[in-house]
């Protein structure tokens, strides 16, 4: 199964316009400045927002086609989506949240162990820390055996070590999942570590130079003037 999308959407301050493909078992990492349209893209892939124009094709299914007025609702796309603000159902405890749409409830236990929250099964979301909530949201998405996995900054609330551990787990999982994975992050190390492909999104467009400019502090990029004052740390973490 390959996901391929051509998306156009008029936003208030810029027009989103880009296309990409992502085959099964591969992970595409989206990265780019805040407000650049990453979440909007993910929402369109999920079917929660409609592009103004373009097409989304998954394998041999057409999920969206502006020309032919096709729009498959999110229910029928069978995806896993970890929201940026890691929405969980406040009325359910963590276990029930993860088991909510699980294909096999027994897997939930395995996932909870993997993500180190098995001691929190019976807690309600407001009774755990931000990072714990986020990990539960990932378990929820994985437990339903998605055909496409969308992760919008899934590790943003995690500390370095936990993050690194989970990042590895995710990389291992990716092979077993056999579905395309789209991953949004702010962490360039993470992007480089995880990505089979990197899609830098700047003001709604694919801007291949952005990553390079950011990393190498190319003259003219914002990074230079500001970064110069910064101590040069070379932590390999």
């Amino acid at each position: 199964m390959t996901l391929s999308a051509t998306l156009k959407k008029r936003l208030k301050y810029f027009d989103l316009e880009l296309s990409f493909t992502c085959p099964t078992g591969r992970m595409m990492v989206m990265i780019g400045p805040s407000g650049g349209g990453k979440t909007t893209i993910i929402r369109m892939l999920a079917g929660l927002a409609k592009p103004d124009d373009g097409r989304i094709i998954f394998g041999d299914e057409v999920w969206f086609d502006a020309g032919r007025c096709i729009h498959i609702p999110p229910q029928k796309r069978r995806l896993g989506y970890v929201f940026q603000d890691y929405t969980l159902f406040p009325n359910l405890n963590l276990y029930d949240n993860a088991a909510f749409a699980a294909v096999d409830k027994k897997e939930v236990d395995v996932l909870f162990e993997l993500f180190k929250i098995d001691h929190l099964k019976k807690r309600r979301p407001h009774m755990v820390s931000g990072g714990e909530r986020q990990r539960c949201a990932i378990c929820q998405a994985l437990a339903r055996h998605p055909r496409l996995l969308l992760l919008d900054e899934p590790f943003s609330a995690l500390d370095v070590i936990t993050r690194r551990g989970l990042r590895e787990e995710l990389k291992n999982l990716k092979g077993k999942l056999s579905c395309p994975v789209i991953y949004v992050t702010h962490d360039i190390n993470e992007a480089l570590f995880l990505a089979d492909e990197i899609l830098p999104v700047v003001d709604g467009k694919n801007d291949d130079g952005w990553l390079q400019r950011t990393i190498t502090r190319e003259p003219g990029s914002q990074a230079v003037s500001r970064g110069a004052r910064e101590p040069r740390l070379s932590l390999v973490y």
Partner: protein
Amino acid sequence: MDYLALYVTIKLALVTTAVLMVIAAPIAYILAYKHFPGKSFVEALIYLPMALPPTVIGFYLIILMGPRGWAGGIWESLTGGSLLFTFLGITIASIIYSIPFAVQPMKAAFQKIDRRLLDAAYILGLSKRAAFLRVIIPNSVSGIAASAVLVFLHSIGAFGVLLMVGGSIPGQTKVASIAIYEAVEMMDYSAAGFLALGFIPISYAFLLLVNRLNEDSRT
């Protein structure tokens, strides 16, 4: 004290509340989420039983449920009996009379649901129906509790409508409010007062129950 009348009252209120919770939920859902032409008008019609004086509702219900009205006619051709002056008859009247109180607080609660929860539910593959049952309902408990309280207490206090369609058959349609009316008409004010006092423990008990359920759902 007319215990039989109190018993009929409680039975009527419980049945009304139970039935209305089931009927009102989908109506409230449609009013909260769907858009269609004439929606406000439909909504106004649903709320009409509240705006109309009970005697007017009773007046039209008699016409409807009488043997010459279509509801009463159908019922009679099916069962051979009359709809008026039966427990079923006053239950229907009481349900119609209380519909608005069931619908409005539920609608408000459904509207307050965080849209992101619904997004999450759809992503997880839930149909609209399943999302309604598994996400909207459990996250609207306090609104549903509000509905239940209003409907229950309102049916307990129902009088005008039941006077019109009920007759006053002990054990069947003679509810406490009618017994009070009769006591007042007989100028037996102390009997009326006693019976009225009976309402306090009933509403107190019901409130305790609903508050308990409401709180359970939030811890």
